[in-house]
């Protein structure tokens, strides 16, 4: 067993983030079972369903690469959705909403970063607590004014297509490209890699560790707000529970994409395909009429198998 695992070619294969394999397998499954669905228009719509998750994953992978985690995305999405749908800002314009959302997300991210980077509080707990507070805050607000409609122009933007490709998908893709360039071409990206590998050594080699962590979280907050805007645009109504399961899915997609706390082998595209895999997984299971319990079991097993496949590579074969 260990001899096979150590073969260089297999080693190279095993180094590929599991997301790529899962995606390929699901694509083949769909191609065999429902070839008519493999057309650009249909795929575009399926991928559009996960665009909010895809954007949020960019935030998650950024903080996971500095050995942190951000679970506050759910709260940010809910709050932004509430801002836009509740009518507490009557007659506000689109730039106002976008500005307000991004500012809110950034401020929350900055707070997370400050608590984690400067005060060195557990990231799981801080961001979880922030999420709970935000959810609680929205509950409090909605006792005075429950959410209502989302302005129709947001939904209109969401439905625009550019050729076969829906605008939200293009937007997500563009954002991913920007993030990939940002991480690979800037000094900040190098800082992120360094802090993720060894914060102590990073400090000694002149990397501003605290600032890197704070900045990563601030950016993550900003991106979460962008995800919130995409999510809000995707639905026509306000809700008291939207997007709350996205952060944990984002963590799963990120890990599936080969980014583990501190280690970033999958880069930005691994998690990208992690999200695509989730999109296809949902489609394949709905297509095969797998009912809810079956869906849960299948989803669990697929994540697990993918992770096992990936894990064997690093397993201590010596």
């Amino acid at each position, binding site marked *: 067993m260990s001899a096979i695992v150590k073969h260089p070619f297999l080693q190279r294969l095993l180094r590929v983030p599991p997301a790529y394999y899962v995606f390929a397998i699901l694509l083949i499954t769909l191609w065999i079972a429902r070839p008519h669905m493999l057309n650009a228009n249909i795929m575009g719509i399926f991928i559009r369903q996960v665009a909010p998750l895809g954007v949020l994953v960019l935030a998650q992978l950024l903080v996971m690469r500095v050995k942190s985690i951000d679970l506050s995305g759910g709260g940010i999405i809910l709050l932004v959705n509430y801002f836009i749908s509740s009518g507490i800002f009557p007659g506000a314009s689109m730039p106002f909403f976008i500005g307000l959302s991004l500012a809110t997300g950034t401020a929350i991210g900055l707070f997370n970063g400050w608590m984690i980077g400067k005060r060195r509080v*557990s990231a799981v707990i801080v961001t979880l*607590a922030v999420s709970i507070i935000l959810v609680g805050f929205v509950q409090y607000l909605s006792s005075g004014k429950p959410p209502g409609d989302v302005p129709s122009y947001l939904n209109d933007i969401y439905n625009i297509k550019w050729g076969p490709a829906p605008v939200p998908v293009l937007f997500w893709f563009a954002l991913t490209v920007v993030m990939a360039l940002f991480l690979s071409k800037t000094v900040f990206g190098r800082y992120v890699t360094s802090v993720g590998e060894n914060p102590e050594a990073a400090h000694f080699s002149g990397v501003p560790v605290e600032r890197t962590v704070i900045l990563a979280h601030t950016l993550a907050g900003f991106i979460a707000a962008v995800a919130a805007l995409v999510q809000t645009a995707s639905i026509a109504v306000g809700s008291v529970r939207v997007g709350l399961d996205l952060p944990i899915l984002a963590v*799963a997609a990120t890990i599936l994409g080969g980014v583990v706390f501190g280690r970033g082998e999958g880069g930005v595209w691994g998690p990208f395909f992690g999200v695509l895999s989730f999109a296809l997984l949902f489609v394949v299971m709905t297509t095969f009429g797998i009912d809810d319990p079956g869906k*849960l079991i299948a989803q669990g097993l697929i994540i*697990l198998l993918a992770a096992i496949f990936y894990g064997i590579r690093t397993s201590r074969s010596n």
Partner: protein
Amino acid sequence: MLPLLIAIAISIYLGLRTDQFLGSENLFNLIAQAMPLVITAIGQMFVVVVGGLDLSVGSLISFTTAILALDAPGYVTIPAVFLFAVLVGLSNGLVITRLNVHPIIATLAMQYVILGITRILRPVSGGTVPDIVIQSVGGTFLGVPMPVFWGVAVVLVAWKLLHGSRFGLHLFAIGGGVANGTPDAARNFGVPDRRNILLAYVACSCFAALAGVFLAGRIVSGDPNVGLLFELDAITAVAVGGTQLSGGIGSLQGTVIGALVLALLSNGMNLTNVSPFIQTAIKGGLLLLVVGLQTRKKIGL
């Protein structure tokens, strides 16, 4: 120590503020309300100490209640529940230690799988739980409500495992290595690390199943959703109690106090009639405060 101070502060405030808080009925209520979280959090602590996490405990709790509410005698279902818990713990542990899967992913996947099985077994809540379970949770012994005995027994067992045995020391050793980025350190001392991590996951699952048994006795039925999000509460309690999520540092008393703080908070807000619309935000704020004041050396999880 901060959590302890907070627990005492909340208690004093409630004692002064309301007539009911210090009543024996409410105190026993409080113990019973806190017990599932105390048990689950203690279990969770085993894996947190080795630098892991177990997100599958919530579903396992639901699953346990579902099994107990099957139409079968208690002497079949109760051992079955623990047998299954051991299996879940073993498979979590094996996947994590032997197949090198990240604990969050391994246990998240397990959470989905168990939830799915539970939904098949019991799509909606219902069924009847064996009398012995109901009695052992709701009854009294020598005039003292049963949950008190549960608490004492669980804490004693956990203390023995964590602080009174080689096993516990080894868990701390393994976690210390993991937290330091030298996961092999304990192994090089001759500590069988993979076996011990495996056992930590088994312990975590068994405590979760125990919490499930307690809950089944309390809601006297099986329910596919009863454990939903319990894992987050348990992790929160562990962290509030001062255990480092990166591993290696923590104490049992801290975890128990952490769980009590959370329970006190719910009970207190109910007794002081805090609007339900704001309770969630207060809970989160307090969590932030407690943890925000505990700074550490290391940045991260």
